[in-house]
């Protein structure tokens, strides 16, 4: 049961973070390790900063929200 609760908690945390556009770090790490094992993996802090920059205006400048 605690396994289930733990998974639900993780899932809700993911959902809450995606509300503000922060993707899942573990997914990123897994992706890097399986697809690009030779490349360095960003730390959580760097990942967080990079994603924050990207959301609000790192070049493409697409509006992120409606009226």
């Amino acid at each position, binding site marked *: 049961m605690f396994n289930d609760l733990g998974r639900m908690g993780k899932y809700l945390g993911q*959902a809450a973070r995606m509300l*503000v556009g922060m993707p899942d770090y573990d997914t990123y790490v897994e*992706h890097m390790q399986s697809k690009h094992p030779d490349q360095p993996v960003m730390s*959580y802090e760097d990942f*967080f900063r990079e994603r924050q920059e990207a*959301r*609000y205006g790192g070049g493409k*400048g697409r*509006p992120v929200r409606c*009226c």
Partner: protein
Amino acid sequence: MTRLVSRLAWLALAVLGALALGVVALRRGEPINALWIVVASTAIYLVAYRYYSLFIATRVMQLDPRRATPAVLNNDGLDFVPTNQHVLFGHHFAAIAGAGPLVGPVLAAQMGYLPGTLWLIAGVVLAGAVQDFLVLCISTRRNARSLGDMVREEMGQIPGTIALFGCFLIMVIILAVLALIVVKALAHSPWGMFTVMATIPIAMFMGLYMRYIRPGRIGEISLIGIVLLLASIWLGGAISTDPYWSGVFTFTGVQITWMLIGYGFVAAVLPVWLILAPRDYLSTFLKIGTIAALAIGIVILSPELKMPALTQFIDGTGPVWKGALFPFLFITIACGAVSGFHALIASGTTPKLLANETQARYIGYGGMLMESMVAIMAMVAASVIEPGVYFAMNSPPAIVGADTASVAAAVSHWGFAITPEALEGVARDIGETTILARAGGAPTLAVGIAQILHQVLPGEDTMAFWYHFAILFEALFILTAVDAGTRAGRFMLQDLLGNFVPALRRTDSWGANVLATAGCVALWGYLLYQGVVDPLGGINTLWPLFGISNQMLAGIALMLCSVVLIKMKRQRYVWVTLLPAFWLLICTTAASLIKLFDPNPAVGFLALAKKYAVALDAGQVLAPAKDLGQMQNVIMNAYTNAGLSVLFLVVVFSILFYALKVGRAAWIVEERTDKETPFQAIPGA
């Protein structure tokens, strides 16, 4: 057998929805319970989702579960990440649901609850959700391209640039209107002003904390932030009763305008992690929480609607905004029914995260339906307050006077009985000195929310707390939108100007950035200032312009979808997008032409300019202008607004011209001519 049972259950739901809608539409004279509206809309939305969106998914677009989406193909764990559909629903919904579904219906309540409710229900099912869904689909099949890029690819370079220009125009107007709403809500309100100002140091603290002390802990810092916000609301209450401090935090509309313009410029230049991101987190969580609380409150309370189903203002003489039901009702309610801005979002980050294109139905169509539910809640909240209070709050002083006695008299004269004591009583209840001249939807909604939540969770002085909580939550996400929007506007401006002066396109150049930011802020700042000093009431003029521009963009998005459907040789289904596009074109064109050429100076911009110009030449000062300088203002504003209306017409008809040209050429060709990325199956599936 189970299929038959399932079909029967859906039929029963449809009948329930139709019955409830019948009660809402046909009951006159006696007040009805808000739950009829809630049940009608919920049932109809569920049925529409089950049948119409499925039809679009399977017959029209022929979505393929085996097809790999850009998230799968370009997976980088950062921008392109196949995301769980429920998590993505939340992300998309948080992006589309802003102030729009809350303000539009509140303003539309001027005509009674019925017209707005019917437009919300019909509009979202047939136009809004269709737009969101289809734009998401076609963007996903084009490697998550943006709307402007798709118009360029499918229709040509010139319409692409025109569409981008249209997007930029809307951006500027939205920013001005949102800022105006904040100004109207906070003018002469020390409590509100203090609480909103307090969000800046709170956000900075959160930003620094997340950057240096405990990097990346969103949940933790958001909780701390919310606690600090609640404390600031409480402190604001204490300040508003203190004679000295309440004076310090009382500002006029013009002062707040300058503060907002300055803030807009500074905030858009600062790094995102300092103020914008923390504020975004706070506003998103607060927004979702408050909407949920409002929905639960309405269901628990089952309040009665006090606003009548129809008021006399469907003829166009309304105080809050001028214009007859057609076309202006459809312009006033955008978000919640159909909003062009959503097309930008549906071709923004969401298509990069979509794991399977069949999920676009849930996220695109479903997400918009959910936003429409929020709009329905806002309509209910506005309709449960006394109509006399509603009109007192939203009518400009130029029409009803500036003190409670004359306002009460004017409003009662219209048939909405209210006494000056009642008006003062509401003001006291919410902890303000006055509720007059607080147009813009946000204060009205705040009163409605406060009354509902206060009845569900009663307590002394809690109504004032809830009112300021509601004002804070609206101001918070409006200011976030202003900040984020100015940045986005800056990129758009750099993009557009870069066509003529390539050096400006470089986003790494500090000079170009500051120039573009200043340009963007100057544009919305000018419209905002104009709206605030406009003696005829800024919301009165600016909201219809915003509505027209928004529906214009929706028309463009639906025209793009129609062209794509023809190019895909799905042309027998093109009516799915063509009918709503046609409707939107009629509405925006009629509205623009009326706003330009109507001989009534209260409606038509050119007539207004002429009336005041003639008076100015004769050296007269016409009320409500107070001196010759204000006369100039009125004339200048009227010409600016007329110019904007002309621009919209030009934009929408150019795109129509290209859409017809490209569509006709594609219609007669046998093969597909659309620019979809080729089919690739999901690897390893």
